[in-house]
């Protein structure tokens, strides 16, 4: 397999991994949301994320099978790869924390995802472009929902404001990884930083919040070097397929 297609496959897998792992995390809120409507909202967003992951895994499997004569499927890629093979952003695998932290992460991630997918929509690869176009319609709803919650809590009570501040401190140094390129990435992620920051600051201003002054940024996830949390997620998510290989519903 040549280097170019190898990069392409790795990039598609990284897009799939981030949406799958964030979906898996958000799914932990199912039946634990603060109120019923928001429980339903976060799990609906989860469904969109896992749907996007499926589209990327299916396409990655197709490309791998074409170039390497293998027999990968969306399931084998999600359930049978190890921690070092996952290329998701670290921020996706962090524990949910409280509601403030969960919605702030969604806001950071969805705002970044929109910028990425707006680039991918113009990609020469028609399937990647099609997945991006499809996903953008969903991401717009995720951004609207999470922005509103950031404002509601930031500009809410002392308690909710403090929780948002704590969430910013907990997550901020995981946002730099969005814009530090990995060698396989097909778009220039560094160039998206200014637009992302502008979006965040606009919402934060209305939420009476400020960005963190912390400038140290954690990296590694995109190259398979993860926090201690990913192993536990995979253990839970993959246990059924590892124990009963090929099991189907």
């Amino acid at each position: 397999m040549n280097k170019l297609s190898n990069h392409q496959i790795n990039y598609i897998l990284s897009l799939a991994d981030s949406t799958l792992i964030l979906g898996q995390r958000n799914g932990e809120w199912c039946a634990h949301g603060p109120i019923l409507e928001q429980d339903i909202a976060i799990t609906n967003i989860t469904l969109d994320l896992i749907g996007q992951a499926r589209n990327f895994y299916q396409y990655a499997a197709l490309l791998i099978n074409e170039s390497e004569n293998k027999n990968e499927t969306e399931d084998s890629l999600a359930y049978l790869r190890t921690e070092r093979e996952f290329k998701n952003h670290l921020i996706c695998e962090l524990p949910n924390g409280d509601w403030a932290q969960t919605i702030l992460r969604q806001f950071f991630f969805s705002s970044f995802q929109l910028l990425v997918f707006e680039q991918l929509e113009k990609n020469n690869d028609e399937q990647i472009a099609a997945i991006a176009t499809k996903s953008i319609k969903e991401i717009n709803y995720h951004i609207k929902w999470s922005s509103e919650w950031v404002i509601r809590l930031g500009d809410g009570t002392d308690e909710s404001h403090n929780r948002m501040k704590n969430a910013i401190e907990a997550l901020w140094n995981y946002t730099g990884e969005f814009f530090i390129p990995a060698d396989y990435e097909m778009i220039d992620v560094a160039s998206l930083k200014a637009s992302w920051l502008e979006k965040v600051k606009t919402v934060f201003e209305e939420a009476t919040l400020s960005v963190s002054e912390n400038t140290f940024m954690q990296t590694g996830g995109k190259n398979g070097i993860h926090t201690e949390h990913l192993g536990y997620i995979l253990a839970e998510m993959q246990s059924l397929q590892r124990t009963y290989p090929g099991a189907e519903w």
Partner: protein
Amino acid sequence: MSDLIKEHIYKILEQVSDPEIPVLTILDMGIVRDVISDDQNNIEVIITPTYSGCPAMDAIAFDIKMKLIENGYTHVKVTYTLQPAWTTDWMSEDGKNKLKAYGIAPPQNISSRINKLLFSQEENIECPQCHSTNTKLLSEFGSTACKALYQCNDCKEPFDYFKCH
């Protein structure tokens, strides 16, 4: 392929409903993109998902196969396409009327006019029970990925709204 076969297959597909909104056929939903057949009577039905994570797609593909097999088409393949992306504009007028009669407010604007303004809601969503347009958004996310939850300020009844997409 002969137009006759194609027409026949579309007639059969009219009997396949959306498992989550059984009053709508998959043709009302606008998710059938094309039907192709060759000389050997191999049929390919091309469908597109409403949302990336729509869990009904596998059930729909299965139902399409079963319905066509019942009608004598034994070599049936269902394939998915994402391009062009489905929007609520693809839903038929007939479909929108059926939704309303079923108690779900149909999508009201063209999909490109989604209101991204924060804390906004779509205006003049009609309550499917009492037809008042004095309604409010309860949640942007409802019982399925394609619906939002609204409530009527007059008759107080909560209802699903099929959101523009």
